[in-house]
């Protein structure tokens, strides 16, 4: 049902580059894995949040005295119980810290928290919400960025002119001169929708504040460290007095590394009541009161030569920022950068405007601005190839990045396998032969980052750290701050540690998701952990190994020109692998030699001098075979092939899972996952009306993995699993273009849009006939 092939495979490793079962597997298939959703503490109260029914209003008064009379209600908190800190994840930039989470005097979107209740049951807490009386002064609202930037639009944040929250400018080369060289210029407007992260585990937190002034929070997070630091900021506490626990997390996808209502309100309630408080969002709350993928309006002008050489591109983007900044500022930059991918432009100019509106805030989501960028770019490239009568694969190929290419002022590409991706997709298309009349194939190319180099969070710590401790029986404790959210980072780190140390994956216990015991790490976002935490783990394991080998050298009496190594728990001279000793024996001797102190290896990673964006980039090309029912406009995905370069694969089983999963989310973005708003209200905040890919909609996901070597990554590895969220929407659009000649400029591509486009096309054809 799926074909997985590795092109140019290497096999110089013992553990790495094999199929390794996820080390959390037994816990997850037996129900033993305990998520925040499952946490129950003695004396625990249940919290519920009162939310704004208005998209824009002043809060004049909150009276919760009636709620307090209900038996079982322990307490209510409002913005007045907080320090009123305007917080945000871009901590270095005060003007981008704009969200109080529990509003003090004004609400800016429907669903914004106003008060929170704690009671002995969830039912009582929910009932108590009806007895909180809020007086509002409703203000005029605005919902679309192109309306919100008008002079007469209501002001959403005080002093923010025309509601422009962030602007970003990227430019290289002489853009107008490069356009001057173009023999063909095309311009298009696109509209890209939002998307819900839709983690299976909704936002959840259990906060427990105790009289000694310590706070422990179990939460569903992508970065335990971020939440430790963010909570410290809003509660006026020291980071070290806050412990975040997140062993198992039911999905993240970019939506769980900012401070959310569950975390903040449970902490404020617990601090007031000195009892543990649990808040779990309902699915509806998770839809209306978290954040979403950033909706974008894209203007794209592209100039090319008649032979298909790309000359220049200019893009202008207006994003619907919703009520607050969140990670939207990063998405605004990254969409502009990846819009240039994976091509070489002589001149490139991007201007992005993130605009506040009175809607659900938008933020990062798997792909981080790039799925929108590629939906526009990769369709326009396809149309240009058709306009010029060129082969779309060859036109892409001749303009693509290559090893050693420098994106001017932005990035240096140290590894790039895209050229072979074109070969693999061509082969796949050829192998399909003639397709049925209602089917066509669309392709789309892209690239993605392997972790960001930026430090808007203003951490004083290394971006990633790891500690390797070796026990007397040869078992290994690996402490990392990398956050396991299902992507398999615990397994990836265990593999890297085992490979570097020369032991088995089963010898390694990974400790993560606990800020009391694990080193700080920025966490799981921007595809950073494999490269950054992976480098830290490799360094820590090599440090421990070096300490062990010192003892082995001392006792071996070998000539200094010979090297020792450890593989599969066997310590040996590389030149004479049969001569050696058992790893455990060496560990015991080393312990004795160190007067009983355990061997501890330390490692860390922070990118330096790696351009503006990321230390490394993945590349990929995807082909999707699409079938359309002309009567209903319904899309069906029949088959797919992804040619993909993630450097050296660490674990093929994990890699396949990441690619298939990213593809399903990307397909959902392309044609199913639609978030319609009316007067600021999301119209489908439930899983009946919000459609996503189910098992019956998922096509085969064939993969050709191009094995390259990325010098900055651990063992040559780079990003996998986020980048593949980027190409699919455009690939579906391109299939429709080849099937019917229609151009889809809005995503998700919904049936009525296809029917309208077909109708329009028919009318135009008839008009032409009539004229003849």
């Amino acid at each position, binding site marked *: 049902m799926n074909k997985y092939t590795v092109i140019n495979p290497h096999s110089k490793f013992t553990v790495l580059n094999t199929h390794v079962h996820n080390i*959390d597997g037994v816990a997850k298939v*037996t129900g033993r894995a305990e998520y925040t959703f499952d946490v129950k503490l003695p004396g625990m109260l249940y919290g519920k949040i009162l939310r704004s029914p208005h998209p824009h209003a002043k809060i004049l008064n909150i009276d919760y005295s009636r709620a307090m009379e209900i038996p079982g209600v322990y307490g209510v908190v409002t913005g007045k119980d907080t320090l009123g800190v305007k917080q945000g994840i871009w901590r270095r930039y005060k003007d981008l810290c704009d969200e109080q989470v529990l509003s003090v005097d004004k609400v800016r979107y429907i669903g914004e928290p106003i008060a929170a209740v704690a009671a002995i049951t969830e039912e009582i807490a929910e009932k108590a919400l009806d007895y909180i009386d809020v007086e509002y002064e409703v203000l005029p609202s605005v919902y679309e960025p192109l309306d919100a930037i008008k002079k007469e639009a209501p002001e959403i944040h005080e002093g923010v002119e025309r509601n422009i929250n962030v602007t970003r400018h990227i430019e290289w080369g002489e853009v107008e001169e490069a356009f001057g060289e173009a023999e063909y210029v095309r311009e298009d407007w696109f509209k890209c929708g939002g998307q819900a992260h839709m983690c299976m585990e909704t936002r959840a937190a259990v906060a427990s504040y105790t009289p000694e002034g310590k706070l422990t929070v179990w939460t569903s997070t992508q970065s335990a460290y971020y939440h430790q630091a963010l909570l410290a900021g809003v509660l006026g506490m020291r980071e070290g007095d806050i412990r975040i626990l997140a062993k198992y997390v039911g999905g993240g996808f970019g939506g769980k590394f900012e401070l959310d209502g569950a975390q903040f309100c449970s902490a404020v309630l617990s601090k007031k009541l000195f009892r543990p408080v649990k808040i779990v969002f309902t699915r509806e709350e998770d839809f209306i009161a978290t954040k979403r993928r950033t909706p974008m309006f894209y203007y794209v002008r592209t100039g090319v030569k008649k032979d298909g050489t790309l000359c220049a591109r200019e893009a202008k983007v207006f994003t619907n920022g919703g009520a607050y900044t969140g990670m939207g500022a990063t998405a605004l930059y990254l969409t502009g950068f990846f819009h240039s991918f994976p091509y070489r432009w002589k001149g490139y100019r991007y201007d992005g405007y993130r605009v506040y509106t009175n809607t659900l805030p938008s933020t990062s989501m798997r792909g981080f601005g790039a799925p929108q960028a590629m939906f526009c770019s990769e369709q326009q490239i396809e149309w240009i190839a058709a306009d010029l009568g060129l082969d779309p694969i060859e036109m892409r190929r001749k303009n693509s990045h290559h090893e050693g290419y420098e994106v001017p002022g932005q990035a240096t590409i140290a590894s790039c396998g895209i050229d072979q991706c074109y070969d693999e997709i061509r082969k796949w298309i050829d192998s399909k032969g003639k397709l049925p009349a209602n089917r066509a194939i669309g392709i789309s190319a892209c690239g993605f980052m392997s972790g960001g180099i930026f430090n808007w969070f203003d951490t004083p710590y290394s971006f990633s750290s790891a500690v390797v401790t070796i026990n007397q029986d040869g078992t290994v404790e690996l402490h990392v701050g990398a956050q396991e959210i299902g992507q398999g980072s615990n397994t990836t780190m265990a593999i890297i540690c085992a490979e570097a140390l020369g032991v088995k994956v089963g010898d390694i216990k990974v400790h993560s998701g606990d800020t009391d015991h694990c080193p700080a790490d920025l966490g799981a976002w921007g595809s950073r952990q494999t490269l950054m935490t992976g480098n830290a783990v490799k360094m820590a394991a090599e440090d421990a190994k070096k300490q062990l080998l010192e003892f082995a050298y001392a006792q071996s009496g070998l000539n200094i020109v010979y090297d020792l190594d450890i593989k599969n728990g066997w310590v040996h001279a590389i030149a004479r692998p049969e001569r050696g000793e058992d790893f455990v024996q060496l560990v015991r001797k080393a312990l004795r030699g160190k007067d009983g102190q355990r061997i501890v290896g330390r490692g860390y990673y922070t990118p330096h001098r790696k351009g503006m964006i990321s230390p490394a980039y993945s590349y990929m090309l995807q082909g999707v075979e699409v079938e359309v029912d002309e009567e209903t406009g319904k899309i069906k995905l029949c088959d797919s092939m992804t040619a993909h370069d993630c450097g050296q694969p660490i674990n093929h089983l994990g890699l396949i*899972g990441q690619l*298939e999963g990213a593809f399903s989310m990307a397909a959902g973005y392309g044609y199913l996952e639609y978030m319609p708003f009316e007067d600021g209200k999301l119209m489908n905040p439930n899983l*009946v009306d919000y459609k996503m890919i*189910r098992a*019956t909609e998922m096509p085969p996901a064939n993969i050709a993995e191009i094995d390259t070597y990325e010098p900055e990554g651990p063992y040559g590895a780079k990003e996998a699993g986020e980048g593949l969220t980027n190409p699919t929407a455009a690939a579906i659009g391109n299939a429709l273009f080849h099937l019917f000649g229609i151009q889809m400029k809005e995503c998700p591509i919904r049936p009525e849009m296809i029917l309208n486009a077909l109708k329009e096309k028919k009318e135009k054809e008839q008009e032409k006939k009539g004229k003849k």
Partner: protein
Amino acid sequence: MEKRLLTLNVNGQDYELYINPKTLLVEAIRDHIGLTGTKRGCDTVSCGACTVMIDGMAIKSCSVLAMQAEGYQITTVEGLEVNGKLAPIQKAFIDNGSYQCGFCAPGMLMSAQALLNENKNPTEWEIREGIEGNICRCTGYNSIVRAIDGAAKGKYTEAKS
């Protein structure tokens, strides 16, 4: 509403509960009996995270009242393994990487097992239909389909693993 006494048989064990008659089966299992393997991901009977088996058939436990399940054999994810030995379908999920965050896995495993109880040799399409009621946001389902297919073909029975 007056509380009621009822007995639920979960994973072969009788549990006596004194609960509000409006209590959903999923609430009884998680909150009253304390078996938290079974998850909950929506309020609209849409996601399948709470799927359990009732007399071997897959049922979303948020769609029935606890009282309606009295007298039936209820199986949750905790009931699949026997004396520390994983069931073939659990081994198949591990071998194929058929979960990532793992939140849908308890329900998905129940739908998969119920399908195999009913249909020993499902086609790929029958497998897909069998788990259509379960949302997985992480895997893209194909690895789950491979696992169920492998389990159906006897790849994970005791003798072979």
